[in-house]
């Protein structure tokens, strides 16, 4: 949320939010986030990361 208009890479997210957890759990978190703020607002860039669409 701190970086709207910017793609945050998976690596960055894993490093910041999920220290030690595997990347599967990142997907789970993302799908939870989608449910909360809306399907279209979380944009995926496959293989790269995620972006919060304005």
């Amino acid at each position: 949320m701190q970086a709207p208009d910017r793609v945050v890479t998976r690596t960055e997210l894993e490093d910041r939010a999920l220290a030690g957890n595997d990347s599967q759990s990142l997907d789970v978190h993302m799908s939870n986030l989608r449910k909360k703020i809306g399907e279209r607002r979380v944009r995926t860039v496959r293989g790269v990361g995620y972006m919060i669409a304005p």
Partner: protein
Amino acid sequence: MRTQRSLFRRLLGGFLLVMLAIWLVVVGLAVYETKVLHARHTAAENRGWARQIMLNLRSVAHNPAEVARVATQVEKLRYDMLREVDYWPKPAMLQVWLHDQRIYQSEGGLPAGLVLPGPDSPQLGSEWSTDTERDAATGLVVRRDAMHDTSWLLTGSGAAYYIAPLLYSLPFLLLPAWLIVRRGLQPLQAMVAAIEQRSDSALELLPPSGYRELAPLAASVNRLMQRLTERVERDKEFLTDAAHELKTPLSVIQANAHLLLNHRDNPARLQEADHGLRQGVARATHTVHQLLALERARHDAEAGAAQPVDLVYLLRERLAHAAPLAIQRNIELELDAPDECLLALHRESIVALLDNLVGNAVKYSPDGRCVRVSLSTGSAPMLAIRDEGPGIAPELRTKVFERFYRIPGQTQAGSGLGLAIAERAALRNGASVALLDGEAGRGLLVQVRFAPA
């Protein structure tokens, strides 16, 4: 300061050194031979005299006083003879025995330290020759000891005899040697003069040298000239192209600035002019940035050696950088890559390469389509960037790498430098860029092959 070495002196010095060495060997041989010859000569002469004296004494053998007189006379005869040819005879000792009784010994005697030898004593030394003659009928024994004459070797005239040829020949040898070496080096000097006389803009090739030894020099100078010419040409072309490329956005800026000034009262025109002005500035800025990137990408001297870089990490970073623009236009951007791919790369130029290739793919991709980036790591890593844009016709695929080349009819704005930058950057990182048909003949596939890790 070290004095500068001279090829000329080197050649001449070598020549002189060889000459001196040969002279020393020849003189050594001559001296040795002379010593041997002198010993033989003295021995033969000594024997001859001894026999002659014996012949002379035989008839007077009965009278010892007469023997002494004849012996003295014969010795004096020899002495006078030698003096007449200006020669100082070396010491010689003549002794005569009658029935084992010494009845004569020559005057002057032996040099100090030598004992008077008997008839059967060995020779007095290596410097001496000796001969003993016996006459059984009269009971006479004649012994003559003569010293070899070698002293002249060390006298002034002896030395002069050996050194004179060298001294005489030196000027005759040195002068031609000097001339030969000088003449021999003349083509080199001519070449130096030919290069020296040029102005810094005259980069035409040297005429090929007729000398085998100078041909490689001329050839390498010419190769350098050729490279310099090409480089100067390239730079000149680059400069005119760059100026030309900047002219368009600058005139756009100028025109819009003019509009801004003259239509202050018309908000619609003002906004239009403002928009145009911003676009012009953006385009000029982009061109300048691309020019700088190109210069950096091709610069061989750019800081240091390649560093290990994780290409996957870098790809994510650059795609994340490009993604907002893609998402804005609803373009699906995706990366298919392993977790890590460490390669020795120049980070800055690889960033330029990725940004340009991905940027192109996104730019030319129609809205709502897909740009797929994949990295395969086999023996040699290969990066593939696929878009669904208009593609590039096969016959233009070499031309698009030229600086400032734009495909005719192109509507997208651009500097025409992107692929040139990508290619130079690839080259600098030991990689190559190839343009191919996209999937099902649609769009463009850009392949970057890296050198095997």
